[in-house]
């Protein structure tokens, strides 16, 4: 797996980009005025990995996503996407990123096809190629028949799945999903999670999946735990569990985020 040091070799054309980390954060901090939202966050995600970013509400997940997607500028630290600095070369980095935001971002007054075509054009994909990709991807989630319906007519789960299709249209190498299953029923959550895991397995896409729902973590995942803006754990599930002195990832998460102490206190 690539490291920060390897990123220095980005200009070396002989070095394959796929050997670099899909995502690399080095000492990233961010503050809203005096309130520190992220403090010295450092981690990497290898290509083809499914990484779960765990954190309670307010842990800094959305801020982190805003920094990775260049909605906010990185004032302290550096973020690289496949070796491309998001602040110095945002175009190169953003081309490799597919993003599903926490809030719904489909235009509800436009049809599904119009929404997807718009996104394709924002990535410079010509109409014919865009149509081919739209049909293929919509078929893969069994929603081809909803293509010309207004986004408004879709259910919450269907909107989410279309947003994922949209994020995949430009064939990104790294997919960011910010609380993608929030507000959805169990079936929709399971379907979306399964779709994304399938992408990792079949296409080798890298995924950063932000959630506060612990049951979305699988044994093979890389787990990154944020608590009050600080990185409190990072590694394979069994390492995180072991280092937290816990039996399960659920318990480890509770210990790392202070819920455990809170619950223990309540029992007294």
């Amino acid at each position, binding site marked *: 797996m690539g490291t920060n040091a390897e990123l220095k070799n980005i200009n070396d054309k002989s070095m394959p980009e796929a050997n670099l980390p*899909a995502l690399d954060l080095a000492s990233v901090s961010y503050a809203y005025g005096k309130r520190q939202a992220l403090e010295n966050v450092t981690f990497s995600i290898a290509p083809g990995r499914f990484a779960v970013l765990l954190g309670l509400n307010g842990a800094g997940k959305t801020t982190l996503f805003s920094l990775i997607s260049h*909605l906010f500028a990185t004032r302290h630290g550096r973020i690289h996407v496949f070796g491309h600095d998001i602040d110095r070369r945002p175009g190169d980095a953003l081309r490799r990123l597919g993003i599903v935001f926490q809030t719904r*971002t489909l235009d509800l007054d436009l049809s599904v096809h119009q929404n997807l075509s718009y996104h394709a054009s924002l990535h*410079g994909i*010509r109409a014919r190629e865009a149509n081919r990709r739209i049909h293929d991807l919509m078929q893969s989630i069994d929603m081809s028949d909803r293509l010309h319906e207004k986004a408004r007519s879709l259910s919450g789960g269907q909107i989410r799945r279309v947003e994922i299709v949209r994020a995949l249209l430009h064939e*990104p190498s790294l997919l960011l999903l910010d609380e993608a299953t929030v507000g959805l029923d169990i079936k929709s959550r399971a379907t979306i999670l399964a779709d994304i895991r399938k992408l990792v397995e079949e296409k080798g896409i890298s995924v950063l999946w932000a959630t506060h729902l612990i049951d979305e973590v699988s044994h093979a995942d890389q787990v990154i735990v944020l608590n009050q803006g600080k990185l409190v754990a990072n590694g394979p599930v069994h390492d995180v569990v072991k280092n937290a002195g816990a039996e399960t990832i659920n318990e480890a998460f509770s210990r790392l985020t202070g819920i455990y102490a809170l619950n223990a206190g309540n029992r007294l």
Partner: protein
Amino acid sequence: MTDIASRVPIGCSRFGVMNYLVCLKGILIREGLRYLNQRERFISSLVRPLLWLFIFAAGFRQVLGVSIIPPYQTYVLYEVYITPGLCGMILLFSGMQSSLSMVYDREMGNMRTLLVSPFPRWFLLVSKLLAGVAVSIIQVYAFLFIAWFWGVKAPPSGYLLTLPALFLSGMMLGALGMLLSSLIKQLENFAGIMNFVIFPMYFASSALYPLWRVQEASPLLYKICLLNPFTYAVELVRFAFYGQIEWTSLAVVCGFTIVFIAGAIIAYDPSRGLVIKKQEGGNN
């Protein structure tokens, strides 16, 4: 290594001209579709200037005489005089409407879709601006078409020659709207734009009365009108109707367009932008 991860090699080709055109076309189509979906917006954009033309101008025809001033070579009816001002009014409201739509998009999250595109942010903003201007120019021509039946007729070539003037004025006012959208935190605050930007700009200009009349009435208001970029947008359109270029207006409109666009680009820049500061409160 993984197939997708290696799909985009180091040093891969940047976007070419065609990619930029595809992006621009996509933004134009999206704005057009949004406009078609909001028929009320089209109707209200026409009703407003038509009310001024049919009612206000008819009522004030006898009160507000307009002497022979360039570009007119003879006495003109008041309806004829205010028509360029009403075209400017459409562009002004449309520019502000675009800013409203940007604030709405930002609140709804749609703006993020645009801002995470890999194209340079200045290009995305200018494309959005162009899309807004294209829509407002259609509104202006729809208004001029109706005004023609009301007897407000420019020389036939004037309708064509006005197009560049409308475009430039639309760019200036649209860019102003874009800049203002970066200053508005919430949609509810948009009413302030009406009171503090649209109305003062419209009334303190040459849209409704010639500047010499303003000067007679109030030298201070005359100076304010001269400082108002909207005055120059109206005059640019007025002269273009008669195939003439008012060079001062052209220079001022171009200058303010550049300033407003630059301001909007800076405001939407993540490292310097005002927009991000507005959003920061709600994120975690």
